[in-house]
């Protein structure tokens, strides 16, 4: 009996167990395969995404630098951080850092990983390197020391707490990268990013110009901190050939429909924050053009004023210069009764979601060359010629933004140029002229204006001393790192703070030497 019990007990059990164990992990691979994803990266597709993301996340929002550079403001403290520097909203400034690394930085790294070792893709590699410099340069200019060499290596090398590189070393590497990339293009190799490149359709010649233009920009950044090095790189950039022809302007193209990613991000963020109703009144975050900007344009009879600004009169956009009026940035206590009478961006230009974002314009090249000429680092033309050329180019680039030619009549441009001669007698006066015009011209790329403001002190903006501000009524010099870095990357963060100074709005970054 005992034996038979044993027999009966175990036989079926053995059978169940056998059945199960044989199939215990069958099909597991298939079950654990995501049907909505692929396992292999396509560098072209990721590069397109990296371009979108590299442009999309920037300081060019009303809540940040558009406000700080006094183009816009808001009666609302929260949205008005950029123009009011309120302490309670300081953490907003970390957003660019937070958004950039997992997107543009990681994506361009994936692209480089995929094409780097394939000689046939040399032109793709060069383009990716240049784009990487563009992305990093925008980040370091806002924050100072940032993770660079170890950044974006979470998956490849399991680096979860990247060290912060000094801005000095980042600049040195970025300039080296630009030079190497520019020189590595192989004109005989027809393999490019092609249509995946939404800036130049893969054209090596144009990317080369963009590389040298960035070199010019970054070289010029160092004038305060290391003039001789600045000169060396500026000279090299000019020799390499920068963007001087409107056809070569580095501009990111947008479809203007479909998903948000397909829309001009500067316009989209302004629309979403404030202007989507286009009635001059329902502005969600209380945004308007700032008084300083509109007053300056008006007093200069700037033909751009009707191109960029409107006032809603009975619900209809009116771009008559006479009625344009900017909102003061010191309003506290809510929506002013005359809110609707203040100017705001024009829907068909500044807010056009199909408009390209201009990343590097001929205007910028000429303004930088004008400064180089002033410094005797460039002798191709005199500063006054370059200055005038810059102003003309800047006016004409509104054709690109508005999508129609002749947005600003050439007569108006002539009149303006005639009224704005390069009259400064001292270097400083001339520099002020250049970077005041730069302020008008480069709008809405406030981030580039902010960089040159810190370097040159121009335009001579009067800071807003708003109650509860974080800076004691000074325009801040940098953005704050995300607080998550204090926790998740504490050692690297502490080292950066030690070196650079407190994680504070007024701490100056390397090239912004006092």
């Amino acid at each position, binding site marked *: 009996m005992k034996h038979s019990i044993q027999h009966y007990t175990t036989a079926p059990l053995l059978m169940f167990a056998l059945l199960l164990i044989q199939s215990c992990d069958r099909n597991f691979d298939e079950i*654990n395969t995501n049907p909505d994803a692929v396992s292999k990266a396509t560098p072209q597709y990721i590069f397109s995404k990296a371009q979108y993301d590299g442009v999309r996340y920037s300081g060019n929002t009303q809540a940040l630098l558009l406000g700080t550079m006094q183009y816009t403001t808001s009666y609302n403290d929260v949205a008005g951080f950029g123009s009011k520097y309120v302490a309670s909203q300081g953490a907003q400034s970390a957003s660019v850092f937070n958004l950039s690394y997992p997107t543009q930085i990681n994506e361009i790294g994936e692209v480089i990983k995929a094409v780097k070792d394939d000689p046939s893709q040399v032109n793709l590699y060069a383009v990716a390197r240049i784009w990487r410099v563009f992305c990093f340069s925008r980040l370091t200019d806002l924050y100072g020391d940032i993770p660079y060499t170890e950044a974006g290596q979470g998956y490849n090398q399991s680096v979860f707490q990247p060290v912060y590189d000094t801005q000095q070393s980042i600049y040195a590497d970025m300039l080296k990268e630009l030079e190497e990339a520019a020189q590595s293009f192989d004109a005989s190799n027809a393999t490019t990013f092609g249509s995946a490149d939404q800036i130049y359709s893969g054209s090596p010649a144009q990317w080369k110009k963009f590389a040298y233009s960035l070199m010019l920009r970054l070289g010029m950044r160092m004038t305060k901190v290391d003039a001789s090095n600045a000169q060396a790189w500026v000279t090299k950039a000019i020799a390499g050939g920068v963007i001087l022809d409107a056809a070569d302007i580095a501009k990111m193209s947008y479809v203007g429909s479909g998903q948000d990613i397909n829309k001009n991000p500067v316009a989209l963020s302004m629309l979403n924050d404030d202007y989507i109703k286009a009635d001059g009144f329902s502005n969600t975050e209380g945004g308007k053009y700032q008084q300083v900007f509109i007053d300056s344009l008006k007093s200069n009879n700037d033909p751009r004023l009707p191109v960029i600004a409107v006032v809603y009169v009975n619900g209809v956009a009116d771009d008559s210069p006479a009625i344009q009026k900017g909102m003061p940035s010191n309003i506290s206590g809510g929506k002013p009764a005359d809110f609707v009478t203040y100017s705001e961006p024009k829907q068909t230009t500044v807010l056009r979601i199909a408009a390209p974002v201009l990343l590097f314009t001929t205007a910028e090249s000429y303004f930088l060359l004008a400064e180089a000429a002033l410094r005797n680092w460039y002798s191709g033309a005199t500063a006054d010629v370059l200055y005038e050329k810059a102003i003309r180019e800047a006016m004409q680039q509104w054709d690109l933004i508005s999508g129609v030619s002749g947005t600003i009549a050439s007569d108006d441009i002539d009149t303006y140029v005639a009224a704005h001669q390069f009259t400064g007698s001292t270097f400083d006066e001339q520099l002020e002229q250049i970077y005041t015009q730069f302020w008008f011209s480069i709008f809405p790329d406030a981030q580039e204006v902010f960089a040159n403001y810190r370097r040159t002190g121009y335009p001579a903006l009067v800071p807003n001393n708003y109650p509860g501000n974080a800076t004691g009524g000074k325009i801040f010099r940098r953005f704050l790192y995300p607080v998550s870095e204090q926790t*998740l990357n504490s050692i690297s963060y502490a080292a950066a703070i030690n070196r650079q100074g407190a994680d504070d709005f007024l701490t100056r970054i390397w090239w912004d030497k006092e």
Partner: protein
Amino acid sequence: MKQFDSHLLRGFFLLVIALNLSPQCFGQHYANAYSARREPQQENQRATIPFEDGNISLKDALDQIRTRYHVKFAYREGLLNDKSISLSLLDYSTYTLEELLEKVLAGARLSYKRINKRQYSIFSDRTEKTGVYPETEESEVQEESSQTEAMIPLLKISGTVTAKDDGLPLPGVNVLLKGTANGTTTDAEGKYILTIPDEGGILVFSFIGYAIQEVPVSTQTTVDVSMEQEIQSLNEVVVTALGIEKEKTSVAYSVTEVKGEEFTQARENNVANSLTGKIAGVNATGISTGPGGSSRVVIRGNGSVTGNSQPLYVINGMPIDNSVPGGSATPNGITSNVDRGDGIAAINPDDIESITVLKGGTAAALYGSRGANGVILITTKKGRAQKGIGIEYNSTYTLEKISVFPDFQYEYGQGDGGVMPTTLAQAQATGRRSFGAKINGSTDYVAADGKNHPYTAQKDNLKNFYQTGSTFTNTLAFAGGNEAILYRLSLADLDSKSILPNSTYNRKTANLNISAKLSDRLRVESVVQYSLESANNRASAGDALANPNWTPYEVANTVDVRWLSPGYDAKGNEVIWNDAAIASNSYFVVNKFKESDSKNRFIGQASIAYDILKNLTVKGIITRDFYNYNYSNILPTGTLYTPLGEYAGIKSDVSETNAMITASYKTTVAEHFGISVLAGANGRKFENRQVNFSGKNYIQPYFYSFTNLATSSAIPYTGRITTNSVFGSVDLDYKSLIFLTATGRQDWFSTLSMKNNSIFYPSIGTSFVLSDAVSLPRVFSMARIRASWAQVGGGGPDPYAINLTYSSVPSASSVPLQNVTTQSDGTTAITNINLKPFTSTTTELGFNLQMLDNRLGLDFTVYNRRTTDDIVRVPISNTSGYNYAILNSGRLDNKGIEVLLTATPVKTPNFTWNTSYNVAYNKSEVLKLADGISTSSLGNSANGNAYINNNVGHTYGAIYGYRMLRDDQGRIVFDTNSGLPAQTDINQELGKGVPPLTMGFSNDFRYKNFSLNFLVDGKFGNKVFSVMEVYATRLGLLKSTLAGREDGLVLTGVTKTGDSFSRTIPVSNLRSDYYNTLNRYTELFVHDASFVKLRQVIFTYHIPVSKLKFLRMQSASIAFVGRNLLTLYKKTDNFDPEQSLTNGPAQGIESIGLPRTRSYGINLMLKF
């Protein structure tokens, strides 16, 4: 093949044990054990004095047998007098208990009858021949009548036996004339007839799980008995893993059972919430999200650093899905951040027979990877054999009202800079600011509605905005059956109106349970439940946008919130009430936002059990829990913050399918050894097919369809998990004195790489009944010690965590876009091919004492639970290129003590008082996250003012944030740029988010037909960060913002260089320059969250239906019920300390959720 071998080996581990534990093998073990125990037994014998002729008294002999075999004897007094037997008859080694009894009793012309496993009655042979009837119920009555004629004089007694708790008839109750073997059992309707000698006697009624009752009979012919459940009965049976029933004494771990009726009177919509305070070590938290919301239950501390720490819910032995569709709400989300309800919310409390909580470790070991956080076993009601159809009707109507109101300041009213608004523009600008003039009744005051109002304090805004909520629940159940088939069908409807206007929740359930005995050997059972849950306008919470609670809490204190009603203009657009559009007008939210969801759910089980041999049963069971879910959340056209509107939707099909087969074998060897062996296999398939819809900008205004969006995307997600398992257990029982349980389970996970995809989980436990082994002082009725050790674990709960993949990004451009595949929340995580299953090891020791005839009980448990190789989704620096890394290195400790005291201080026929007190302390410590990583964040408040982090070396889920920087002397250090106190770094630990100490105190009074039950519970030692107070400070509502209102505020401290610092903030800038910036100092808003609450009151009148026979009712009761009636102790001035918003792991943040409520009402129960 090598892989296969090792699986095979491990998988068969238990089968091999089964083979080795053959009866023969046991026989030898027993013999050894017995000889080892012989000495003390002989010593015992010396206590009895043998007669000179080598005889001993029969009484002494039976005493010896009693202690040796741990059985009890019942006999008529005097029956054993003057009887003796030869001592030589007491040869224990050769005979079984029953053989021995036969031998010992034969000489005295006595017989015995086995009442149950541990009770025998002894009677004289003569009686037996005349009085005992065959046990078959059918023939009983007939034989009785024939006997009646034979026996003269005789007394014929009949009656009905019912259960006291529910009034239902009890079939199968033993009825015995005391001191004789004359007895019978009750039939299916609880009726019996017994004929006894005319002289009368005492009738003994006994039934497993009920207290024995003795009723003297002399002349009466009807004896109806109502049997009372014996909670502390030694024979109490508990349901354990896989639905296996075990005697409580045999269980090697702490296990707690709560009867269904505790949930059906004072009910919570979500039955899991009603576990609060009832069980030591179980921390159940209701969420402040209104009816239909989810619950968070954590047993013995959070077991996983970043993963799920909630228990597995099991219905009738098979798991169900408890996920929240689309994920839990977060403390900082906006718009679509609603609590969509969890899986357990679909269960109707009226269908629950009992809930057993397996607190983890050994208890849950048979569930392997899914038992790591404990298991909540729900046994549903079955039919009962009875004549006709039994009908039960249970109806509850409760009302809900806000229980806690903020203690705001009412000295200074709406305005800013000490100025009262006198124009509409000023009123709109300061709609949520209370930094105005001194409240003086001025009639110049203009509010955001543009009208003049007296400038007076408005203290009732919560009462004015919210309504009285109500819940009406009706359950109708039909039950019945016969020997062959039992059935129960219940239909229930729950209709709930939130305190939030326009917010409703409805749940309909139909539950059918059929079990049938097809032959002596074949049984089938099927449970089918269909439920339909639908909710409208569940409250969103977290940050301001779309949060309907924002306005009533934060509106300026001289505004009657009703002035802002209806919140929209003639076109239907939101009306401005304050300076920030993101702070929605709550009336607009309530009236125009449209949230709706519905969940169609089917839970089906079918099982078949076949007895191959008498003791060998094979059982197959298949279950499927399936639901489809539709959710849409419409942010309407005309919302100030998003004028063109937004849309969010989820459509998902989720299923959890389990197929299990088990074989169990039970035997007794050499009389004293009970062995039961179980082996089985389980296959589990989980699937979630989901599409997330999102879009914005309605093309045609005010028309809310996914087709009408300017920008939209529909992103599919498919998650599939398969887990296959084999398992087995061996239970040994020696004389019901010592018990040993060993289990093992091997799981294979589809979510892990083939190299690392399986793990073996063993457990072992023992229970020792000390009171039967040694003789303890009389005061102890029972003493038992238990110990266990177990490993359970889990295996990478999310699919696709091992390989990096790339997905397409929706785009209108002709250029394809691809990115590293992001998680559903838009973040990216570094995958990890080397992931392996994690392990949670629990060691548990405990004892159980019953004293003073079971009137006083003590249950004590101490445990240590360590999670190793925890799979953590740890946030990493974004600069790595990713938001998270999935690592396999977490280590977490939970150590704790649980104490349960039960007592019956008063017990008289008319009045009883039962009381129980449970207390549990759990200490958690995060030992490791990953190399070089010391912090992982579980969540944060809106604006990042407070974080809930796991920091290595600290407790699980603590609150972190900023303090004001202070120097050595405690002086505040000021930043001279801003003129504000400097912040410390953000890593300041400000308190525990999870209460370490929990307790419950329950009392049950019964007086005649009345009973009163109340439960007081408390949680201690945790803190809570209040977002509501952050805003109430920035907006001037808190009393702490009164400083400086008259003459300005003087700030003094030191500068960073140590110089003294002083600054006066004028009244005009008091808000903007100071109070508005205080959100930077987290510590100011962290409060002690300890509380004691009167959680539950049930006052019942049991209608004496026996006196109202015409109603044909079996029982009826009406009760006043209340939940969360009073907060007896709390430290938060302005909100309920239980004001949590998410059922996710980030506990410890109050985030302007729906106010907590007290509920009270009437419950009616009728049984026909």
